[in-house]
């Protein structure tokens, strides 16, 4: 192994700028002549907009423009779209309602923009916004997804009767029906997968700039996928032709999915920049982020698992209502369908599965992918049923899992996916050792001596990452291909620039991608730069989400490096006056096989450019290659997390006292970075399980609208984490990478809930399992015991 190559825990190249305050985030960008936008937002969840009076605001000091939805429509600025078409079980297509960047005619959630004020300073824009007079006619709001389809519920969009966007299903209903009829045991559960606010610490921001000389627009934006943003804003919103629109995503301070989507504010900044002829900047305040960043999860589910006499799962039946909020966000439709239903087989050989999902509109912020996206919801369903099933049947939960694990690969599940590689026994076995499962009884007794209830919970999760094979997702309704691109540019002095269509917002690509190049070309890490996040530099790319950057993005780099090596060998053959087939490349050196004749990497790079040793007609000068890589399958990271809690029965407070994670991510480029990804995912999962929950009241007001009301995990909410790995290689990409970004968030919530319910002896516990919720669950159990 090269000391800075694949598998080395090298320290991150990007950290120098971040630890010294030299990071360059969107809000750090200031353009000459820049002015500021402030969005006036609907304070009502559901209201007809009868009139927006802007005259008084326009006359306020410093105001350059006050723009409304009517002007947006008059300028023929197109609607925001959802890019994944879902077909209902009756064959009809999903009901995508118009989503203008500024509400026109009707406001559909608290936070829906109704006007934008552009002024010299932000303070002036805010002051002027107070003078905008909006005449609202209040309509009954709908906030509860469980009530969205009820008779008499207010209908939010004309296109969607009973607020139903689609009624999707997957699997074999009849086979499931038959399996349930002959089941020996059935476990039934109802869940609410709580609604979450992503809360990347950097708020969203945008700066739009118009250059009248070249008739082109530039957008600086907190986005995870600048090319997709450009494509949508060009092809659908119609702001500018694609070649006249540049999107720059500089350093981005966390995304977790929420910065994938194309939002109204960036559209408006570009549109307004052209209208006022000056750069227009907008930065979200945290309270605005709560009201406008796409939220995550929000499922209401009933699920049942059938078991035979030996405890083998024979069937799974799931019915889910998924809340997509007031409008369909960019990838919202895919999250509760193809990222959820397809993972319901978990790590288990379940012969028959049937899943139905109704997606509904409500008067709430749009809901879309948030770290894990559909897979945490699926894992929660499967792993709660397994755990509760084990308890009901009196089988050790680890043993029940072992009994049901898939053992042979490839394995075709009943829900589309073909798992290509894995060893679920290995990760469970290692986790049981690391967590000292055998010693749990002793620890439980020890806790009891201190009047604490101790519990242990498992999560043997699976996810589908490496998103995604383009043909496969195309056949399922996705509007784009999900390959990735790379370009490797070798300079005459031998240093290398790698251009990637992926985008980093915490993942450390500048280091890991360079490690792959360092290993392959045998050059020092510092001689490699990774370039990303600018549509003028990188030709096209699909961005970073779905744990795809390693499995798909790095694979594209590997493919480009193959081409570089092939071309460099040709150059070396000319230099060394040998046959191309005799050239061997290893450790940064080209050697003629069987001789001591060699040329160093840098010499070959220089010769490729000076082109003195070969005729330019025979071999093109230069050393630069591009590649597009389309994966052959999803990848299937999987593992076992074990959570141990102590509950104080007097207060209901749960403390996580131990956490063991054993994950199989295939090939790991940088173990330090991978462990960091696992830590962060677990924290978000623990947040969902114990602390976080977006709450709307019945009128559609967001009650948890700030960091004072929405409880984010802090350092003292988490324990030190034990993170270990097992390894099976993914056969679906050249390096055998599976992806690691979402595992923690997928695995963690159900491990926590399984642990707390184990501690308190009641399965009746919803997330977030706050002290109050746990205390109440305990009281109910005691009441039941007394009654019995």
């Amino acid at each position, binding site marked *: 192994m090269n000391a800075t190559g694949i598998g080395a825990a090298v*320290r*991150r190249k*990007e*950290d*120098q*700028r*971040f*630890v*010294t*305050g*030299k*990071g*360059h*985030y969107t*809000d*750090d960008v*200031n353009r000459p002549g820049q002015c500021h936008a402030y969005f006036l937002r609907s304070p009502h969840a559901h209201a007809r907009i009868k009139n927006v009076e802007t005259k008084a605001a326009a006359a306020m000091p410093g105001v350059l423009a006050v723009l409304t939805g009517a002007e947006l429509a008059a300028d023929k600025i197109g609607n925001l779209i959802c890019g994944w078409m879902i077909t209902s079980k009756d064959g009809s297509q999903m009901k995508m309602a118009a989503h203008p960047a500024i509400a026109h005619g009707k406001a559909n959630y608290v936070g829906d923009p109704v006007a934008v004020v552009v002024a010299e300073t932000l*303070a002036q824009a805010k002051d002027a916004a107070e003078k905008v007079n909006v005449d609202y006619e209040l309509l009954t709001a709908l906030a509860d997804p469980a009530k969205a389809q009820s008779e008499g519920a207010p209908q939010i969009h004309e296109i969607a009767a009973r607020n139903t966007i689609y009624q999707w299903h997957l699997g074999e209903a009849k086979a499931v029906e038959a399996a349930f009829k002959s089941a020996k045991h059935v476990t039934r559960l109802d869940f609410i997968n709580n609604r979450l606010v992503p*809360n*990347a*610490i*950097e*708020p969203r921001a945008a700066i739009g700039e118009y250059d009248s000389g070249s008739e082109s627009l530039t957008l600086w934006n907190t986005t995870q996928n600048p090319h997709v943003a450009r494509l949508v804003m060009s092809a659908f919103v119609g702001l500018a032709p694609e070649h006249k629109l540049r999107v720059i995503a500089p*350093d*981005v*301070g*966390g995304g*977790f999915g929420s910065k994938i989507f194309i939002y109204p504010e960036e559209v408006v900044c570009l549109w307004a920049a052209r209208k006022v002829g000056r750069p227009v900047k907008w*930065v979200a*305040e*945290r*309270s605005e982020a709560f009201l406008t960043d796409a939220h995550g999860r929000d499922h209401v589910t009933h699920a049942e698992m059938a078991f035979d006499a030996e405890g083998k799962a024979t069937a799974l039946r799931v019915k889910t209502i998924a809340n997509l909020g007031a409008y369909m966000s960019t990838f919202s439709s895919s999250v509760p369908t193809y990222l959820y239903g397809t993972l319901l087989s978990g790590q288990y050989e379940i012969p028959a599965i049937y899943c139905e999902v109704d997606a509904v509109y409500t008067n709430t912020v749009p809901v879309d992918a948030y770290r894990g996206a559909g897979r945490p919801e699926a894992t929660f369903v499967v792993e709660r049923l397994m755990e509760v099933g084990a308890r009901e049947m009196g089988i050790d939960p680890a043993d029940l899992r072992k009994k049901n694990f898939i053992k042979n690969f490839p394995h075709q599940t009943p829900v589309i996916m073909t798992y290509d590689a894995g060893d679920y026994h290995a990760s469970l076995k290692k986790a049981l050792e690391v967590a000292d499962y055998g010693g749990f009884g002793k620890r439980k007794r020890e806790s009891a001596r201190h009047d604490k209830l101790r519990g242990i919970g498992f999560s043997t999760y699976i996810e589908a990452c490496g998103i995604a094979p383009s043909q496969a997702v195309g056949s399922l309704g996705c509007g784009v291909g999900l390959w990735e691109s790379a370009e490797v540019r070798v300079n005459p002095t031998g240093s290398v620039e790698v251009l990637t269509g992926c985008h980093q*917002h*915490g*993942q*450390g690509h500048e280091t890991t991608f360079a490690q792959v190049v360092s290993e392959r070309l045998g050059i020092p890490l510092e001689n490699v730069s990774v370039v990303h996040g600018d549509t003028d530099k990188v030709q096209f790319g699909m961005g970073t989400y779905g744990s795809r950057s390693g499995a798909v993005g790095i694979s594209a780099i590997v493919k480009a490096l193959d081409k570089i090596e092939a071309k460099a060998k040709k150059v070396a053959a000319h230099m060394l006056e040998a046959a191309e087939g005799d050239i061997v490349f290893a450790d940064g050196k080209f050697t003629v096989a069987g001789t001591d004749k060699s040329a160093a990497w840098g010499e070959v790079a220089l010769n490729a450019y000076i082109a003195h040793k070969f005729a330019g007609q025979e071999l093109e000068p230069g050393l630069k290659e591009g590649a597009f890589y389309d994966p052959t399958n999803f990848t299937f990271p999987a593992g076992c997390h074990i959570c141990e809690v102590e509950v104080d029965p007097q207060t209901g407070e749960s403390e996580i006292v131990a956490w063991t994670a054993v994950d199989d991510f295939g090939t790991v480029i940088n173990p*330090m*970075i991978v*462990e*960091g990804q696992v*830590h*962060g*995912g*677990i*924290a*978000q999962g623990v947040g969902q399980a114990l602390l976080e929950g977006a709450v709307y009241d019945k009128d559609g007001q967001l009650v948890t609208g*700030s*960091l*004072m009301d929405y409880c*984010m*995990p*802090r*350092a*003292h909410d*988490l324990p*030190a*984490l034990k993170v270990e790995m097992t390894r099976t290689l993914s056969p679906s990409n050249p390096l055998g990478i599976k992806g690691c970004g979402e595992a*923690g968030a997928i695995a963690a919530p159900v491990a926590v809930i399984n642990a707390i319910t184990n501690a308190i002896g009641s399965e009746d516990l919803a997330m977030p399992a706050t002290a109050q919720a746990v205390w109440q669950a305990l009281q109910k159990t005691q009441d039941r015991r007394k009654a019995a």
Partner: protein
Amino acid sequence: MTAVALTVNGKPVTGDVDPRTLLVQFLRENLRLTGTHVGCDTSQCGACVVHVDGKAVKACTVFVWQIEGANVTTIEGLADPNGPLHPMQEAFREHHGLQCGYCTPGMIMTAVDMVNRKGHELDDPTIRHELEGNLCRCTGYHNIVKAIAAGAKAMKGHVQQQA
């Protein structure tokens, strides 16, 4: 408008500001010291922590006129830009105590203040408790805690950059 004069990272600075200008706005917008970040609007996240007269302060909680004459250190002033990193900066890098980097300046400034008040031997519960005012969404805090423990030890004998 209000005239203000203070010392930032060892250099005297002045400004003529709207009285509602917060310290964080003054640093970012007037002085273009953009290493100090804004992550919330309720003084919860700690991304804007700087040192005012040697003590950690959330720069979003004070108007700049309130600290007239004060000595302010930001992340940019923690170490000599041409010299080695401050031991706490180095510890964050060494222990992978950051991912997206957005909360990092506030974390590091909080950590240095923690060492100034609590000493060089910081245990896990102390560090976690002391991080009450700083949010990180990326790291799960695990490596931040490790970094601070190591940085605290490394700060023994370190002479603070004059600010």
